[in-house]
Each structure stands twice: as C-alpha cells, then as structure tokens.
C-alpha cells in the first residue's frame, strides 16, 4: 500500500462480480446527476464529522469472458460489480470504507465508518498526511475513445471470430488451440472536496490464444501465444487494417493498432510446428534484438516497478520487495540507468494504452513525465500524499484502485521507451547484427526483489548470423542486471516500429490488487547479453 503513515483501513464491505445478462450490461443503472447527489451526501456527511478531505468513488465494473478450445465454446460469462468507496482524512489520517448499498443512507453510513476508521487510526499516526494540491475541475467527463463498444457486439460474432482463429490454427497444423476474449468496462464517478465531479467510461480488450504443436513420437510439445497485446480500445482492435501490419522475421506478422487474430493463429501453428525441430541455442554472449511485445515486459519489471515510490520507501518490503533505485540515486542527478539513447517516460494519456484515463483515482488530471532522460534517472512515480517526499508540489496522477471496495494507492502508469529519432527499421537493425538473437512475444520472466538480476524468455526466437535470420531457436533465456542491460542498449528503431505491450494483471499490495498497464517501445538492440540454454531432460 502506498499510504504514508496509516493508509485506508477497510471496514466490512461486500464485493462480487455478479453474473448478469448481456442486455443488463448495457443498461446504466444510475445517471450522472444521481451519482452527484449520492457523492454530495458523502462529502457533506464527512465534512460534518470533521473530515478535512474526502473523496468518493462510485464504480460499476463490467467484465465479459469468452473461452474456447478447438471447435468448442468452453465458457461465456458476464459479471458486474457496483458500489462506492469513500476515503477521508480526519486528524491528518486516512480512513476508508465501502458499500454496495447505493442509497443516500447506505453511502452516509459508509462515510461514517470511514471517519471512524480515520479517528481510530489517528492515535498511531506519526505525521499527518500531506496532500499535494490539486485543482477542482468541476463537472467533467472522459471516455476511452473507442469506435465500437465490445459489449455491444453480439456474442455470436465474437464466438465466430475466436472459432475462426482456432480453425486457422488447426488448418495450419496445430494439435490443440485455446482462444479467449476478455473485455472490461470501468464506469467510474469521482467526487472530492476539492470541487471535482469526474465521470469516466474506461474500456479495455484482450484477445489471446495458445496454439500447441505436439510430436507424440518424440514426446515433445511447443506453444506459441498471440502477437497481440491487451489494449485500451474497443472492438475495433479486432478489425484488422493493412496499415497496422508489420513484417517480422520468418513470415511473422506483427501488429500495431489493430489485430488480425485469424491470420496470426495460422502463422502461430506453423511456427509452433517449426519449433519442434528448431535448434537448441548455444549459450553465450549475443546482441539481442527485442521486439516491443517482448521488450514491454522487460521495461515493466526493470524500470516500471523499481521506480514506484512506495516500494522505494519500504512499504512493499514484505511482499513485492524494495528497490535498487534509491532516493539518493535520483537526487544525485547522475545515476546512469541506461545508455544515452535510453529515454523512458511515464504517460497516463497515451491513446490505446491500458493505463489511459483522463483523471486518476484521486482526481488528478493525467499527464506524461520523464523517468529516464538521456540515460539518467530523473524521476519516480508518486501520488498526492507522496509528492512532498520528492519536493514536488503536484501528484503524477497515478493513483488507482482495482474496484470501488479497495482503497486507491500508487500504481504503475504506462512506462514506455521513446523511439529512436533517426529513421531506422527492424529489418535494418537485423542487418547490422553479426551474432544475435531476435525475440518476439512474452515468455517466462523473473526478477529479484530489488530489481537488479533478471531472466526473461520469449514466445519465438530467431538466430541472427551476419545480418541474416538463420532459423528458429529453442531453449533461449537471457540474464542480466538492470543497469548493465539498459547501458548496453545500442540502438532503438524509429516511431514507425513503436507499439504497445500490455498486462491486465500487474499485482501489488497486501491484500493484493491488480491493475492494467501498457508499455510502448520500438524494436531495440542490446549488445553482449548473456544467453543461457534452458533445455533439460527429465
């Protein structure tokens, strides 16, 4: 938790993802004007009970999952969760409570509980909470700029698409295929005593598959997952456009702002089969050419997490760990996180990204800021009650809660590697490599609790010999140290190659909360990285 001093103490609450009909998902149970009335009831109640600050989050969280296997539909499930969370500061201490009783009386009682919690906890408070100021925005709204609401697309159309992808994989020689579609809609209303009433409609979508090829005689099996990312878009992401397709090695297609799941499933089957007889990697030093849908996870683990201020301060010591990126390294202004070509920025406004919202969960307008500039560490990620620690007078706007019934805290914004400024394609990058490995897609990942030592696998690996793709490889994983790795970054492709990686399930906190986050990058080259062979016989 990010709470400095005492964070939110959660009193009894009731939370569920209830299964609902598709039609019901499209109804809006509460108009914005009604939400304002309820929010004002909480704000006024808290004020009358001595709160110096209050925020109210009314949230309706909708999910739909569709799961298929070969020619079968395994599950279709729709869930809804609706309720309100109230956070107050009383006696300089946070208090939080939530309820799914969406009446003025229910919200008033939740507010009273939040105040009681703050009062009870204030006797343990060492220093009062210091909030960075924020502007009151009045009544405003923000929507994910979707073109087609996935929840409005008939289930039969979505099923047809997934089953077509499965058929393409089986036709391509896959032994088994699972494909899934996960859709999210967060309808969030925020109000605070700073004078903001913010209504937001946030959409995310995640198509995925796992294509497997099996050689029964040899007792071998290989898997290839989708070359897509979960994104902050509507169903238009699944309506492929030619201009969003990039040619990758070995006939692979890589996708930018729209995804052709049927095409990719067919290619996946061919690649999975090819992996069954691919060469096992010779361990040693290689120049790595890392594609964005792979590099995103490396950015997430080795840059996104170490720069979270609550982790740096020790609030995550018993679970996620602490960080090598300490305050003194930031304050020195000289810490070489990476080479001079490395510019990494946080951005909660990036179109199509999972973290994109207009305002964060404490009413701060979202923005972009630099984390690493010209290789030098220049900033961390901080919210309103942390900003003063960094000598800042405003929050970065990266506060988030997974639900109305969980207290909001500092979460990783989208953290992305800026593209190279000179024209440079991934084809040219491969041509410039003498002995290297090209990796696309995410694989096994592991990093230590202070974010020094990591090991990453991938989805597909191609050997590069003298500027040419020399065939697929198996059993590849690379190991490095965060600072060494980013200092070995020699070249980054230009913005034509830039695209997003994403994760729906970044975990943090005890009890754990998840958040969705994207990481953009262009294909990048890292010189002299240690590659190990992970093949074993049992």
């Amino acid at each position, binding site marked *: 938790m990010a709470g400095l001093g005492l964070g939110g103490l959660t009193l009894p609450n009731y939370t569920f993802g209830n*299964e609902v009909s598709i039609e019901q998902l499209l109804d809006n149970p509460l108009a914005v004007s009604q939400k304002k009335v309820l929010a004002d009831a909480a704000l006024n109640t808290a004020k009358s009970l001595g709160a110096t600050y209050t925020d109210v989050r009314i949230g309706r969280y909708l999910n739909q999952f569709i799961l298929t296997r070969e020619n079968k539909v395994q599950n279709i499930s729709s869930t809804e969760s609706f309720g309100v969370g109230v956070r107050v500061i009383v006696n300089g201490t946070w208090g939080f409570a939530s309820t799914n009783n969406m009446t003025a009386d229910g919200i008033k009682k939740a507010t009273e509980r939040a105040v009681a919690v703050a009062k009870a906890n204030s006797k343990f408070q060492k220093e009062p909470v210091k909030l960075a100021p924020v502007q009151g925005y009045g009544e405003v709204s923000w929507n994910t700029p979707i073109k087609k609401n996935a929840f409005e697309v008939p289930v039969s159309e979505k099923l047809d698409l997934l089953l077509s992808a499965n058929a393409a994989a089986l036709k391509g020689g896959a032994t088994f295929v699972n494909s899934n579609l996960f859709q999210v809609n967060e309808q969030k209303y925020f109000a605070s005593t700073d004078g903001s009433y913010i209504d937001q409609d946030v959409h995310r979508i995640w198509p995925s598959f796992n294509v497997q090829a099996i050689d029964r005689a040899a007792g071998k099996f290989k898997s290839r997952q989708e070359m897509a990312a979960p994104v902050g878009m509507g169903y238009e992401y699944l309506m492929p456009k030619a201009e969003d397709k990039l040619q990758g090695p070995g006939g692979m297609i890589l996708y930018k702002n729209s995804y052709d799941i049927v095409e990719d499933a067919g290619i996946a089957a061919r690649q999975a089969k090819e992996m069954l007889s691919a060469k096992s990697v010779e361990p040693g030093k290689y120049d790595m050419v890392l594609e964005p849908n792979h590099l995103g996870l490396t950015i997430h683990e080795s840059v996104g997490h170490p720069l979270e201020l609550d982790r740096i301060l020790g*609030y995550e*010591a018993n679970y996620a760990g602490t960080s*090598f990126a300490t305050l003194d390294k930031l304050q020195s202004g000289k810490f070489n996180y990476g080479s001079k070509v490395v510019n990494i920025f946080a951005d909660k406004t990036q179109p199509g990204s999972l973290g994109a919202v207009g305002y964060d969960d404490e009413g701060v307008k979202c923005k972009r800021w630099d984390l690493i500039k010209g290789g030098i560490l220049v900033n961390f990620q901080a919210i309103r009650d942390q900003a003063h620690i960094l000598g800042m007078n405003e929050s970065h706007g990266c506060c988030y809660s997974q639900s109305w019934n969980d207290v909001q805290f500092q979460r990783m914004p989208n953290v992305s590697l800026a593209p190279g400024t000179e024209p440079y394609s991934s084809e040219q990058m491969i041509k410039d490599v003498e002995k290297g490995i090209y990796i696309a897609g995410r694989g096994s990942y592991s990093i230590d609790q202070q974010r020094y030592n990591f090991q990453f696998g991938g989805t597909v690996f191609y050997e590069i010999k003298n500027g040419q793709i020399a065939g697929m490889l198996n059993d590849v994983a690379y190991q490095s140290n965060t600072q060494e790795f980013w200092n070995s970054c020699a070249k980054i492709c230009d913005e034509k190659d830039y695209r997003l990686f994403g994760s729906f399930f970044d975990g943090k906190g005890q009890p754990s909360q998840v958040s969705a986050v994207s990481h953009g990058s262009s294909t990048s080259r890292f010189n002299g990285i240690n590659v190990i062979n992970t093949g074993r016989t049992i």
Partner: protein
Amino acid sequence: MALLTKDEAFALMKKVLSYSKADECEVNLNGNENGNIRYAINSVSTSGKTFQSTLVVASAYGKKLGIATINEFDDASLEKVVRRSEELAQLAPENPEYVSFLGPQKYAEPKMFIQSTAAITPKQRADMVEQSLAVAKAGNAIAAGFLEDSMGFAAMMNSKGLQAYSTSTNVNFSVTVRTQDGKGSGYAIRGYNDVSKLDTKSATQIATDKAVKSSTAKAIEPGKYTVILEPAAAAVLLENIFFSMDARQADEGRSFLSKPGGATRLGEKMVDERVNIYSDPHNADLPTSTWNGDGRPQERVSWIEKGVIKNLTYSRYWAEKKGVKAVPGPDAAIMEGGTKSLEELIAGTKKGILVTKLWYIRQVDPQSLLLTGLTRDGTFYIENGKIQYPIKNFRFNESPIIMLNNLEELGKAERTVSTESNVNYLVPPMKIRDFTFSSLSDAV
C-alpha cells in the same frame, strides 16, 4: 449475510432449487469473513475486515449449461439468479464435454474449523503485530509484515440429491525484517487452522536473526552446489509438480508426465525412491475439505510413492472417457520426511548452501518443469557441519523433478505456506546435491 449453519445453508439452497425449471440444477454457496493487518517500516500501515458471500447457480438443459452468480439473498434475488442461469443455458451452445451432476455422496466430517481462530478480535491482531514489532525494534531492525485470518463455510446441493457442507478457519502470517543499513534481510512465514499455534514473536525473532546474520554477505561463484532447502523454499518448487498432475494434459502429450510414443509416466519411477507425496483431508496438522467444488469426496490419495507416479488428477469428463476413477485435485499436499531437524541436516553437511526462501518462481519449460527464481532473505554457506558465513543471493534454474532425483536427505516435515500461491503444505527440509545456481544477484 452472516456465516450460515448447515441447516440454514441447506434451507436456503432448497429454496433456490425450488425455483428451478431446468433439467438439472446445482447450487454452491460460500461465505467468508477475513481480517487482516499490514505493517511496514515498524508501523501499522493498513488493516481491514471483509465479508464475502457468493451463491452460484448452474442450470442445465441437456448438454447446455448456464452459470450465474449473486450476492443478494432475498427471495426475489434467489429466483432472479436461477432464471438468469437458465437464460444463459438456453443461449449457450451444446457442450459435448458436459457431464451430468453427481447424485448423493458420503463425506467424512471435515476438521478445518477451530473456534479460537473464528473468534479473533481486532485487538488480538494488533497485539500479535505489536509483539512482532517489539522483537524487530529490540533487534534494531525494521519489520514489514502481514497477518490475515479467515473463517468461512462452503455448501452445495443439487437437484439429484447431493448435499455438502463444511466450515473452516485459517491464519497466515509473514514478516520480513531488514537491518537498518539495508544489508541484511530475514523472513518467516507461518500458516495454521488454529491461531493459538501462531507465535508471531518467535517467528519475528527467526526473521530478525536471519537479517542480522545475513548482513555481511560474500559473493561466491554460481554453479552446482549441495543445498539445504528450508520447508518454505522447498514448497514453492514442489508445488509446481502438484499443479501439473492433470491426466488429460498428460494423455494429450503436453505435460512433463507425457512420454515419447504417446503414453504417460503414470506407474513409472520418476524421482528418488525416498520420495512419498500424498494428500489426506484428515491429517491432524493440515486438515482440508472432505469434498471438492463439484461434489466429489476428497480422500487420502498417494501421488508419488517410493518415487513412482501413483495417481493423476481427472476431471469427471476425462475420467468417464478413460473409464477410470475421477480423482479430484487435492487442496494441499504432504511430503513425508525423516526424523532429523534442520540443524542436524546442517551438521551433517561437509560443504553446502542453506536456502531459507526462494522468490519470483516462474516456469521456464513445461516439458521439463524447469523453474527459475532467486534466493532471498538469508542465504548461508555451510562447511564442516556449520554455517560459516552469509552469501549473496543467487538466481537458480532447476527442475523439481531433477531436484528430487538428486535427493541426499530429508528432515522432519513441518507445516509451511507457499509464498507464491499462499497454499499450506507439510514439507520437510531437504538436502539436494547439484542444485543449479546460474548467476549472482545484488539484491538484499
């Protein structure tokens, strides 16, 4: 909704079934009350209490299944959730793998509920944390920890006459203690059904001692070493075997249990003959449920006996297709140990490394169950039967199957908690030869 007695739960589920118009209907009802307190930098950071209850209704028309969930329990809501599941069933395509619900079953009485845990008060939680903090402060160290207790019930009933009910309690506690200079770190984790067995003071003392003793760590070369894994370190490796025992995956050729030519390794010796792993809902130190979520009885099952794979887990569909007993996956696992203490294992070690905790475990290759991860919170070099000095953390790449073939010695099994999955296990400390460390980490 408060936690329901057996009679109350059955009365509610009977009412739900009375609304059903489907060919078959099955109801699962759960309620849980959880309390937690979290602390960091020697101060309480958050605390909370949550109630959760869920009613799941599954309706089937022929082979068409619909599932709906609700958390409201008035009559109108109960009828609504039944209708909703029926609507979904009518919309769903036919599932060729649908298996009709089970009829009445006989279950042994579960023994997971302990009143002392159910009665934990916020003050008790705060007192337990205060004891932990006092130890860390006395050791001039910094503690961060999490204590979480739960009590709950689970019940099910269906239109074919099946009825099941059980109650349970649990408490998990973990603490990380770091030295003021950030050069040493120690950890302890405990899990019990009975909170009276939890001693946060002694657990924190162990974590503090490890923090202090690990603060002058030396770097030694990565490579293959004899290791002694404490139970918490062994559990996070072993559970990857437990999670991968599915018969269908093995039969389909996509498991570490699949063999060239199409057969599986069921009945084959895969690991050292001293390895015996089983599950038993009636084990006094690790009681678990006597029935699973689809109503199958949970019984004592041997998974690995004298190194031989004895049983795999089956869905009811796959068991029916294969004509075998549908053995469900267990809620916990027990690995038999020996009689020696951890100290005795160390005393009998000429050269080796004591691993107290492993972190960020991920599967690298499902074919060999190769895992990677790192040591954390206290790693020590052993020579001539004694801990000589702390060493810097390592990254490992190892398969638990290879590890159990390289078994040297087992200590006495004890209850521990997986830091990866939160599942409780009974696992012994174990001495393993040729454990593969592949690189050094600067992390403390």
